[in-house]
């Protein structure tokens, strides 16, 4: 890693940080038995169900697994589109 690279902070993050991020992800998947593919499926189906009742901002939906200690939770962040000032029915 050259001096200039360091100066302009073009170097990769330290490998210890990479290890921690990768470990966190792998543990999340192992503990809950949730693969990235399953998470995508869940996200699509959640959008389908919620969209039946509400106007969902589909692009911004996030579904993830979070850890608190050794407990896992599925967290869905589902932004709603505001109605444009028009009152229906």
């Amino acid at each position, binding site marked *: 890693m050259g001096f200039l690279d360091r100066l302009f902070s073009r170097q990769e993050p*330290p490998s*210890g940080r990479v*290890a*921690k991020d990768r470990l966190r992800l*792998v543990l999340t998947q192992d*503990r809950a038995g949730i693969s990235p593919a399953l998470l995508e499926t869940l996200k699509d189906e959640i959008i389908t169900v919620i969209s039946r009742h509400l106007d969902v901002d589909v692009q911004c939906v996030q579904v993830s697994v979070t850890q608190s200690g050794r407990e896992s939770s599925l967290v869905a962040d589902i932004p709603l589109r505001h109605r444009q000032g028009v009152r229906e029915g």
Partner: protein
Amino acid sequence: MAGRVVTITSGKGGVGKTTLTANLGAALAMRGQRVVVIDADVGLRNLDVMLGLENRIVYDLVDVIEGRCRLRQGLVRHKQLPELYLLPAAQTRDKSAVQPEDMVRICDELRGDHDVVLIDSPAGIEQGFRYAMEPADEIIIVTNPEVSAARDADRVIGLIEAEEKGPARLVINRLEPSMVSKGHMLGVADVVELLAIDLIGVVPEDSNALIAANRGQPLALSNNRSRAGHAFHNIAGRLLGEEVDFQPLRQPRVFERLLRFVSPERS
């Protein structure tokens, strides 16, 4: 008072279970505890070599289970520590020769005459792990500060929780403080945060461990206590309920490095 049974396990192989068992056994015996260490890795016996007792073995764990000798005859006494005994694994059999109930029966018998029984579990999460876990009152999980070892440790913690065994505590082995400070190794706080389990010890990487293994002399036994030897004694103290501070692991100073360079066994 009946002795306690502590199983040392890890999931992944090669992280230092046998080294920890040998050193913890020695450190506890040096504190006046009556200790038995059981090599539960049937077919891949190694604890005898770590303790320098490979030439003294007459009977083994499977001989005891199958009634070819009494339990007392299977125990090999350590050369320097008269209160440290080894129950060796069988080398020519496999893990199907041991059932969880066998381990419970043997440990129950040992509890009467000994303060601590340490079981060196085989790697993996199969039969050997199961029978090593069955008699445990307490569990020590060994890991290294690496993604693969920590992942396997987490799997083991999950299994222990599911079986409602424990309490389980963590030893982080082979930590290199200089690598951590350069940002190239998972630190103690990282591993503890992600595995979310109590810590009982941190053992720094120490080339003296290899020298000790070459000689069949546990580091903990040495008068010139190495960094790792010191860490093993701290773990022994915590296991006995002593309040031992977790000292910050610093890099050895230049002078100490020089000293170790000149004489690797004195550090």
